[in-house]
């Protein structure tokens, strides 16, 4: 099946690309294509125009800033990042990068693309014919949600692997438009809405990802149905300073369970006070239900998601304690 008809635009510079995004309402940004082309083939995306940004020079390259932070071009392929010696200082980020799909996909896919990966739902990530039989939903045109009946917002899952790791690392992203540039902390980038799932405006382009330096312990874990290539049932990124059970600052981010990655602030406050002892870890896991709120049955039952979140949290905290 051919892709839906559209205008294919390939700007030569960032300025030209931003002008195209400002001029063309509904234009879709295309980088590696592994998500956008998939969604175009399923007619979930039928944009009037596609703006290809993969080759923009301003989105390339990875370098270290004077303050030690890494400045990563959003157009860098995941494969190139995995091969870059500068990434060796962030083993948890490397784990998350390698967890994305397969080599075949990582050879095309970009970091910016993974951060902007569209949300997934088993009622929308289907062929056009399948969706037609089921009827439309919030994402495809009417006021109804098949995944969570009565839901006023789309509850599709954010299934990207790199956001939890980069949120834990305190990354910020640069959003550029003809109106100027702004920096957004990645933890504030995602919204609890499966349709407008990031704060990026239609005329904005995610150009750079800044990862501050750290000597903290960081882990990333991903649980899937099978080894090899798969979207996650759940992921966790966990970070702590200090050593052993002592930590003055802890960051915990759960991914793939909800519409936006979940930063567990309330739980970490208690863990910092109590330390990473067995009892404190038990208490943290027990407190997870309240922190997560209602969950959907998308891709796995809500009860499984809760149990998985507890398991991931326990494994991550135990791993941090050993580091």
């Amino acid at each position, binding site marked *: 099946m051919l892709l839906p008809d*559209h205008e*294919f635009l390939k700007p030569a510079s960032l300025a030209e690309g931003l002008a195209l995004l400002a001029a063309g309402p509904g234009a879709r940004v295309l980088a590696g294509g*592994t998500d956008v*082309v998939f969604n175009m083939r*399923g007619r979930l995306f039928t944009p009037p125009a596609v703006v290809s940004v993969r080759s923009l020079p301003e989105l390339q390259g990875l370098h270290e800033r004077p303050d030690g932070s890494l400045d990563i071009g959003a157009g860098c392929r995941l494969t190139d990042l995995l091969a870059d010696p500068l990434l060796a200082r962030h083993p948890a980020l490397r784990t998350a990068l*390698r967890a994305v799909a397969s*080599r075949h996909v990582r*050879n095309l896919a970009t970091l910016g693309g993974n951060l902007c990966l569209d949300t997934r739902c088993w009622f929308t990530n289907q062929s056009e014919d399948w969706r037609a039989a089921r009827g439309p939903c919030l994402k495809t045109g009417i006021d109804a949600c098949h995944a969570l009946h009565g839901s006023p917002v789309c509850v599709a899952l954010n299934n990207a692997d790199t956001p939890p790791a980069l949120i834990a690392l305190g990354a910020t992203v640069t959003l550029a438009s003809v109106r100027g540039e702004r920096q957004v902390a990645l933890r504030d980038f995602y919204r609890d809405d499966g349709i407008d799932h990031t704060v990026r405006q239609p005329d904005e382009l995610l150009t750079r990802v800044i990862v501050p330096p750290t000597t903290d312990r960081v882990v990333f874990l991903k649980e899937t149905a099978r080894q090899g290539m798969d979207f996650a049932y759940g992921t966790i990124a966990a970070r702590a300073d200090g050593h052993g059970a002592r930590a003055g600052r802890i960051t915990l981010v759960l991914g793939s369970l909800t519409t936006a990655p979940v930063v567990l602030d309330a739980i970490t406050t208690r863990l910092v006070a109590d330390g990473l002892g067995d009892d404190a870890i038990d208490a943290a896991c027990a407190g997870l239900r309240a922190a997560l709120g209602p969950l959907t049955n998308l891709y796995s039952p809500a009860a499984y998601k809760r149990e998985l979140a507890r398991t991931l949290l326990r494994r991550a905290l135990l791993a941090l304690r050993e580091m």
Partner: protein
Amino acid sequence: MDAKRETPPAGRSRVLRLVVNGDLHEVLVTPRHTLLDVIRGELGLKGTKEGCTTGSCGVCTVHNDRGEAILSCLTPALEWDGESITTIEGLESGGRLAPIQQAFVEHHAVQCGYCTPGVIMSAQAILNATPEPAEADINDGLAGVICRCTGHIKVKEAVRNAWRYAGGAGPAPGGSHD
């Protein structure tokens, strides 16, 4: 193929300049074509297969100019203007199978054969990146391609033993099956 049955509007057609297996092709394509549509439909290179077209199965695997495996179904053809790719047809030289192809024959790493071009291109990409691949390299490189007939055991044997068929001397004596 659908690409042939549907008639895209000609207004948005553009000339795509693409080097495939060392030969420069100039083809009229529209934004609606993926790289796979061009390889099979326009160039008639039917070795590259169309499977799921959603990035799950890997049978459409070809190589970019770095010899890396990419999915031709998930990338618009016009994205590849001025670039160079290799398809399964480009692996043999002068009528002689590439070592990895010979290894697939010797190790019976084929059942129905539909996935085989994609699996071989994935296997060759592993060898391009790591001439002496470890088990983890092989698993990682084959994770994106799926054989639905059988499994990956024979395929992995073939990848591990491809070196035996290098050097242009044909199959190694005895054709090991370790």
